[in-house]
């Protein structure tokens, strides 16, 4: 075979091999999913910063503008008080820092608070500057005894009713000039039922708030349209002495209160507030605090939470509540020496609140 023929054969062989390999490679390249799919553009709602939450400034301190000094305020930890220790501590701290004295009635039962700051610090018992007594179940001298010599009485989110004697005692206490403040959260049962006045069937002899023309419902308020950080956070503006200087408070979980004909509303929510148990079309401006003479009710305890105390004008409201407590009269033992008035039970303004028209 001539050299020329050999070279031609090799050339043809190489050419065919290159052709086959090249075609195979090209086919492999074209058929492989080597180009990764581009990432789909993410929706705007997933972009960082797209879902911002309104933050309300937290500033200021609780101030109490009152000439009273050394007043004794009874904090009721009995009657199924369901309040966290930190909220009790807030109230204690404000009272003590402003020169008032705290007296405890009862201790919380299971599910309630775990005790106050001062008792936790061993300051229970007689003290000229702070707590002046702690009594509990089994050792309780009775509510009337706790109220003797006191200036004010605070029911902290109660879940159990006052009995007949206690109810009469509280009425005698207010008749003598003592101040009563009830702070309550939304409940499954109406507080007016627990303390008398309507709503749920009242416990025998339990009728306190109804006599004073105030009450509270059981559902919670919410605001879908203007929720600040959570739909259950509602804004309310103040009026009257309890609402003096309160441009706007932010309540984390509030219930509507009821103000009878003689009571005045101290706090009212914005117009788009709704009530959880009021059904559809319940939007309106709900009262969340009211006062009738020496008795006041606030349908919220979140203002006492340290994380919420300085939000918006919450600290102003707390200051006003303390002023209300200490601006009454000191009540001696005389009103409690005889059985209290035995007025027939009256039907208070209890029951589920209806959507307000305002």
């Amino acid at each position: 075979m001539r050299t020329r023929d050999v070279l031609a054969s090799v050339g043809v062989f190489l050419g065919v091999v290159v052709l086959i390999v090249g075609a195979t490679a090209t086919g492999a390249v074209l058929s492989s999913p080597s180009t990764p799919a581009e990432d789909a553009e993410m929706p705007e709602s997933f972009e960082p910063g797209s879902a911002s939450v309104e933050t309300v400034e937290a500033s200021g301190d609780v101030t109490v503008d009152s000439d009273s000094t050394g007043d004794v305020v009874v904090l009721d930890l009995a009657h199924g008080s369901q309040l966290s220790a930190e909220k009790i501590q807030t109230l204690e701290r404000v009272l003590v820092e402003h020169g008032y004295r705290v007296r405890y009635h009862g201790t919380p039962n299971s599910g309630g608070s775990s005790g106050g700051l001062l008792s936790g610090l061993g300051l229970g018992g007689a003290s000229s500057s702070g707590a002046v007594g702690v009594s509990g179940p089994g050792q309780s001298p009775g509510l009337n005894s706790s109220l003797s010599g006191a200036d004010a009485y605070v029911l902290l989110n109660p879940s159990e009713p006052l009995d007949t004697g206690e109810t009469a005692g509280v009425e005698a206490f207010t008749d003598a000039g003592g101040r009563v403040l009830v702070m309550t959260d939304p409940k499954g049962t109406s507080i007016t039922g627990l303390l008398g006045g309507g709503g749920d069937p009242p416990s025998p002899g339990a009728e306190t708030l109804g006599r004073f023309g105030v009450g509270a419902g059981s559902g919670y308020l919410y605001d879908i349209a203007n929720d600040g950080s959570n739909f259950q956070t509602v804004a309310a503006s103040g009026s009257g002495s309890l609402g003096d200087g309160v441009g706007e408070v932010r309540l984390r979980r509030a219930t509507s209160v009821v103000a009878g004909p003689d009571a005045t509303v101290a706090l009212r929510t914005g117009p788009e507030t709704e009530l959880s148990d009021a059904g559809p079309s319940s939007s309106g401006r709900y009262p969340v605090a009211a006062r009738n003479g020496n008795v006041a009710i606030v349908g919220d305890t979140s203002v006492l939470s340290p994380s919420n105390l300085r939000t918006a004008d919450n600290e102003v409201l707390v200051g006003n509540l303390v002023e209300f407590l200490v601006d009454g009269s000191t009540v001696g033992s005389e009103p409690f020496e005889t059985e209290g008035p035995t007025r027939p039970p009256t039907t208070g303004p209890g029951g589920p609140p209806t959507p307000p028209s305002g």
Partner: protein
Amino acid sequence: MYVVVAVAALLVGSALAPFVWGAFNEPDGTVAVVTLEGGIAPQSSDPVVERLDRARDNESIDAVVLRVNSPGGRVPASESLYMAVRETAAEKPVVASVAGQATSGGYMAVLGSDRIYTTPSSQLGSVGVFASVPLVQPSNVEGIVTTAPTKGTAGTPAEVRESVERTKRRFVDLVVEERGEALTVSEQTISRAKVYDGSEAVENGFADAVGGKATAIEAAADRAELDSYRTVTLGPEQSGTQSLSLTGEIDTTRYYALHGVPDGMSVTPIEALSGNATVEPGERADAAIVRGGAA
């Protein structure tokens, strides 16, 4: 001689016939069915995400039907599912078929599809979230030293509340963005986390049309412009309900886009979280729930 040639022609023709037959009768393409069933947690959603990824990358698959019956679950897992659906829909048609429920995180998942079919009585919606928060704060537990008050937690109650709210708003915004002009309800109405049956959902724009699996497959094929197609199911058919286990080695704040409450979860006001923990080390606390929208 002619007989030999004819026999040879028959043999060659018989050999070629199957290829010719196949060439004229091969379906135009393939519609893949991916199933999402039960609660959404990483262990249940990751396989679905993987199947969607496979469907997206496989050139022989021309369209995808996402068959959904889910009440939702963990928010991050739900978001991962949504993203996988959306990324797949960017490559090829994805049609959702709701059979049972597509609520909360389950609804979030179908939002990434091109079209949503539902049976008349299926449930859709519940656009909202909540969080479960451990009551134990390491900084309050004797025997544990932390570097910050909220180390090991999701933050203060206020911070958790804000986080829940941000998550809810993202969800609501996503519905508005994805459903667009189809929606006949306001953003505020969506925030109420209502559940709608299939017929209502079609009316208010949460879904596109009433239809079952076959309708969804046909719609997916149409969108892929397939005159003929085969249907394949990717992954095993899931059955039963995936449970959302709350037990685990690490107890931390979890965000749920879920319609319902997982078993074993009790409710405690979040304000209680900032108090002193009374749970002993090693003891698991009940979970607390923070609601953002009535999920």
